[in-house]
């Protein structure tokens, strides 16, 4: 299994632990990830709020870059990158008139032929949970998590096509496979406040606070995410949320790849747990998952 790997800006900065753990999981499972050389911005927030052609041209440029590598589908871990790549492909496939403008910008003909995948799909669909199960060295028993998908992974309808819009199951099923208990909770696809984190922090505190509260009420000890923005809003802002809501949440926010890596027997030291704001090590130790 070989993929063109598109890390995006987060995985090289705020979400380094996501990048680290993804690469560890991939290598342990024999999945080859070849980073796209000279990859550029995916066109998220700044571009897609400014001009449509730019927000399409940027991801198309990256997809074309991957096409020339001959490394198979493009795989990404960031939900925002995934969304941009998917939307760009959908646009180039369906908007037969408008795509000419984009083709003019990137200087090449493109009709959405390079497929974009999320790493979650690679594990659950391409590799498959049955195969993964055979590779699990140690089930992470006793850990109760809330699987949080956020807004971009499943939407918009008919574009990402990854899972059910309102009640996605991929993360829950993945957690089940590695022995983690996924609680039933209603906020799987709520909004965390996303990129308002910097411009209108108040909104993020309210929305992410609601998510933490619901997860905690439904018995989750940690939250599992598949998006660096969700992770940073829930993790980085947890202290501010506690202060504002007068709460004392102490909920670690894991990337699914970190927990999968632990179940595959990869050493915790390689998974960037030191990069979290809410210390996850305490909980993992308490559950006897790490020593």
């Amino acid at each position, binding site marked *: 299994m070989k993929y063109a790997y598109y890390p995006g800006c987060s995985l090289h900065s705020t979400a380094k632990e996501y990048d680290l753990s993804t690469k560890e999981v991939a290598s342990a499972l024999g999945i080859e990830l070849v980073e796209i050389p000279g990859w550029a911005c995916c066109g998220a927030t700044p571009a897609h709020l400014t001009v449509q052609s730019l927000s399409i041209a940027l991801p198309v440029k990256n997809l074309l870059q991957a096409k020339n590598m001959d490394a198979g589908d493009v795989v990404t871990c960031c939900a925002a990158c995934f969304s941009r790549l998917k939307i760009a492909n959908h646009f180039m496939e369906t908007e037969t008139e408008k795509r000419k403008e984009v083709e003019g910008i990137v200087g090449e003909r493109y009709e959405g032929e390079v497929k974009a995948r999320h790493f979650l799909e690679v594990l659950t669909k391409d590799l498959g949970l049955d195969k993964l199960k055979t590779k699990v060295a140690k089930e992470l028993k006793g850990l109760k998590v809330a699987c949080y998908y956020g807004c971009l992974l499943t939407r918009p309808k008919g574009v990402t096509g990854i899972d*059910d819009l309102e*009640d996605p199951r991929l993360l829950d099923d993945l957690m089940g496979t590695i022995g983690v208990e996924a609680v039933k909770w209603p906020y799987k696809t709520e909004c965390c406040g996303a990129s308002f984190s910097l411009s209108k922090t108040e909104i993020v505190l309210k929305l992410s606070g609601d998510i933490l509260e619901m997860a905690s009420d439904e018995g989750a000890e940690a939250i599992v995410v598949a998006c660096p923005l969700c992770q940073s809003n829930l993790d980085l802002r947890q202290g501010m949320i506690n202060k504002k809501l007068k709460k004392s949440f102490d909920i670690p926010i894991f990337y699914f790849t970190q927990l999968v890596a632990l179940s595959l027997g990869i050493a915790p030291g390689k998974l960037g747990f030191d990069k979290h704001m809410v210390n996850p090590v305490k909980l993992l130790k308490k559950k006897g998952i790490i020593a």
Partner: protein
Amino acid sequence: MKIGVFVCHCGTNISHTVDVEEVAKAAAKLPNVHFATTYKYMCSSPGQALIADSIKEKGLDRIVVSACSPSLHEKTFRKCLEEAGINPYLVEMANIREHCSWVHSDRAQATKKAIELVKLSVAKVSRSKPLSKSFIPIEKRVLVIGGGISGIQAALDVSFAKFPVVMVEKEPSIGGKMAKFDKTFPTLDCAACILTPKMVGVAQNKYVTMHTFSEVVEVSGHVGDFTVKIKKKARSVDLKKCTGCGACYAKCPVKVTSEFDEGLGKRKAIYVPFPQAVPNVPVIDRNACLWFTKKTCGLCKKVCAIGAIDYDQEDEIIEEKFGAIIVATGFKQFDHSVYGEYGYGKFKDVVTGMHFERMANSSGPTGGKIVRPSDGKEALDVVFIQCVGSRDEQKGVPYCSRVCCMYTAKHATLLREHNKNAQAYVFYIDVRAAGKNYEEFVKKAQDEYGAVYLRGRVSRVFEKGGKLIVRGADTLSGSQIEIKADLVVLANGLIAQDDATTIAQMLHIQYDKNRLFTEAHPKLAPVETITSGIFLTGACQSPKDIPDTVATASAASVKALGLMVHDKLEKDPLVARTNNDLCSGCKACYLACPYSAIEMVEIEDRKLKRKRMVSRVIEGVCAGCGNCTAVCRMGAIDVEGFTNRQIMRQIEAL
């Protein structure tokens, strides 16, 4: 051949733009035209007298009236010819009003065009043949498909005129959806109290034959002479012997979910769907019955004192003839399991309006208590969500279901009547209460029964701490709100029945993209279909409330009775006809005919000395649309009044 051309001024409608004298002068010079004149109003009595007198005085044998559209006055002039003693089909109309004077302003050009149009009509009429009307005998019986309030009303209205009616209902009892309702808006009278007398009226009516637990499986023929096959499904209980004592279902040990109670209650394997069922004769659900599944039990047969239980009964197909058919197949409630935001139909306490009806009903599964199906506790805070499936092009249907605003207002009212501590919240898009006393009714639900109306959509319903949290927008205050509810009631819209398209195809009637049956004209023929002799009533045509349903039922009955009072039906001769000598039997016309008016028959070809297939037009069904002529490669099929010879002559004249 002596053709007369009569050019109409139509007041100034035509003469304002067209020089009618000039048209008459030019017409007089056309081949075979013997006489041409003008008159102010050709359709008036003196106008018609002018034509009639000219026919007599000048010996005219074909007429062109150069005036308005034939759809307006062709019939008038045909009658005029008939009275003047010549064949009524020897008149042609040149439409110099809609096609000329009304759409042009240049007088010289318009006059030129009018002359051309007259030229065409003269050319066509020169090749017209005298035609005579045919007559179809009428079978004086009416079939009503569907035994809901719609079919019941139609059957009663037809029977009142003393014509025999056969009603076919697929369920074991007549009564339809209305039988499930508790109260009816806007008067809050009990649905059963006003429906059951009508149900009994049908059962006791000597002009009405009921076939319950039966389905129409085949329809052939045409207006006045339909042949219909009806499948009477095996009820396993003898309808004639059974007295309805109820011993069988009292003893039956098998309990299954009751369809009539929308899954909220139980019924037995042998059952009557509800206490007031008509006929009050049980039916055995063979998928649940122990005798049919395991060949054990047999209790019902043992306890039946008169031996009415018949395990060996089989489906039976009967064939009957009818002159007219009334389609009253009703609707189906939209299935909300496509709505993830309302829990994909998985939350027990998110129910539909129909569930609410059953709960509110004192003979229903909860004995008239509004409860949470999950734990049976009384529901105090109840959220109603409007437009579920309706007005939603993404997940449902684009149209408004018309009745939901009203039934929700009714439910909000009933909720408070059942429990004065209960509170109704209604999320709506618009309140559509356009009916007599409807707006007042909604207002009353708000003012007197305390229903809180919130304008906005619900974005999510989820379970938390044993309650349902309903989150939605209140667009009037511009805020997001959350309500902790015991029960959520969805106002599911009305959609076509699952088998609507099968029924439509069987009857050769049209349906729209929502699979609702299409009326012949949306304004002027709302209960007719394009297939003559088949009429529509109720929600199978579009969502309707009870008053509208009953009104269309009576309208459809009148239409059917309009046929019944005739011994035979006059049929326009403008139908297609096959020339057997030319027909190659290729079936192109047979496949192209939208009315199924063409059949393939075998004829003895004397020249070839063998049998071969040709097409034959069933005159009673043919609407004269001309599709067959257009597809015929041999030129073997022709529509009378629009023959290929006539059209060719017109083209030559241009």
